[in-house]
């Protein structure tokens, strides 16, 4: 008890010093530990965006559940949609515990999403018009997500790290599910190969955008805060390069191309040199003005509002008997 009294007598500066020392020692922070406001705010921003992206990310794939080509594919893509929703639930729980001291709940996050204040990943604003898109989402979009999430396994915020350990274990299955669809098409007829090439071409700019704009030597204040607090350890460009190194050779091995005539691997710099996607378009997309943004937000909002009476009824009954 003595130590608790002493701790509460610390000045804000001393608390901050002790906090930074913990971060520097590689210790992890729990939800009930003291933390500076900007640490909490960065975590809320990152984790609520991640959680909502999982939920919005299930929507493009869900479109393919009724149209999957075989029963096994249907079962697998349903399992994946279910997993993504589960990841959203895990992450929203982590975000809610961070929001609690601010007097906010999941309801606030949903309203922020509907009002386009809470953003979600650019890739989930895009169309998925063919079965090959479902394959490319599983293979490359999940592949990109695995790269970001694996980097974050080391995050200084313990509840986020524990959620990510569960998520990454399932993502491995998702990536293999996507690879299996892609290989089937790549080894198939000319028509199937053409469909797959079109999907790769269509997704290429979105995949480059997924990791966020390159730093070009100047790291944004968001990024430097995140790195100082060890919320994340790698920059956007480092993550993008890791993605390109892993996946570009595989695209070429299958005999496919990406819509970038000048792309090459610079051996000396040990990195891929590629044409930048349209970063102005990226800003518009994540603001909620992408090709499918309105449709999917509308779907989410309709589902949320039309089921409100169910939640209300359950709570009224639960309070009564529970």
């Amino acid at each position: 008890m003595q130590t608790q009294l002493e701790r509460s007598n610390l000045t804000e500066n001393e608390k901050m010093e002790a906090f930074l020392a913990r971060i520097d020692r590689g210790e992890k922070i729990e939800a009930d530990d003291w933390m500076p406001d900007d640490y909490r705010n960065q975590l809320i921003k990152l984790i609520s965006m991640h959680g909502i992206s999982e939920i919005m990310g299930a929507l493009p794939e869900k479109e393919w559940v009724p149209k999957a080509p075989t029963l096994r594919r249907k079962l697998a893509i349903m399992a994946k949609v279910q997993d993504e929703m589960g990841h959203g639930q895990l992450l929203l729980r982590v975000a809610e515990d961070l929001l609690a001291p601010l007097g906010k709940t999941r309801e606030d996050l949903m309203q922020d999403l509907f009002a386009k204040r809470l953003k979600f990943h650019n890739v989930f604003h895009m169309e998925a018009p063919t079965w090959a898109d479902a394959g490319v989402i599983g293979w490359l979009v999940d592949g990109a997500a695995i790269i970001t999430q694996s980097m974050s396994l080391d995050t200084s915020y313990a509840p986020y790290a524990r959620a990510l350990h569960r998520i990454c274990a399932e993502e491995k299955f998702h990536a293999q599910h996507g690879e299996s669809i892609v290989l089937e098409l790549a080894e198939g007829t000319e028509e199937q190969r053409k469909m797959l090439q079109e999907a790769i071409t269509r997704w290429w700019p979105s995949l480059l955008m997924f990791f966020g704009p390159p730093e070009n030597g100047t790291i944004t204040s968001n990024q430097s805060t995140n790195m100082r607090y060890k919320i994340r350890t790698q920059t956007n460009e480092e993550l993008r390069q890791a993605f390109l190194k892993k996946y570009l050779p595989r695209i070429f091995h299958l005999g496919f191309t990406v819509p970038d005539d000048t792309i090459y691997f610079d051996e000396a710099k040990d990195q891929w040199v590629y044409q930048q996607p349209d970063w102005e378009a990226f800003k518009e997309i994540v603001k909620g003005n992408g090709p499918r943004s309105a449709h999917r937000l509308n779907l989410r909002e309709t589902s949320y509002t039309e089921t409100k009476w169910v939640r209300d009824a359950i709570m009224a009954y639960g309070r009564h008997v529970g």
Partner: protein
Amino acid sequence: MDMNKETEANNNFFIYEVFSQKSVNASFVHQFSLLAPNKEVALAMARENFLRRESCFNIWVVKRDDIYSLSPEERPFLERIDNKSYRETKGYGDLQARWRYHREQYEAKQKQAESGS
């Protein structure tokens, strides 16, 4: 849990279930149960009873009354039929060999192109 009722007569001590976490990334694991008059004593006793040697990162004690669980009759329904390979990586065991095949085909073509030019 109904099991609790017989022990409430036990000097009115309560049954607490003890969970501990080995490291920051680990899940909480059930250790055992103990009798205690309140949660503070339960927490102190949890350390003494079950964590005298093992290192430990965190401990929870939960009053058994607050745990809602399956009845013995319901438990058999948890059993799963082994028909979910589409949900597991073991259902995708052929992928590595297929990727290797495509890489070798690509490399052979590259070599041919080089020796041809």
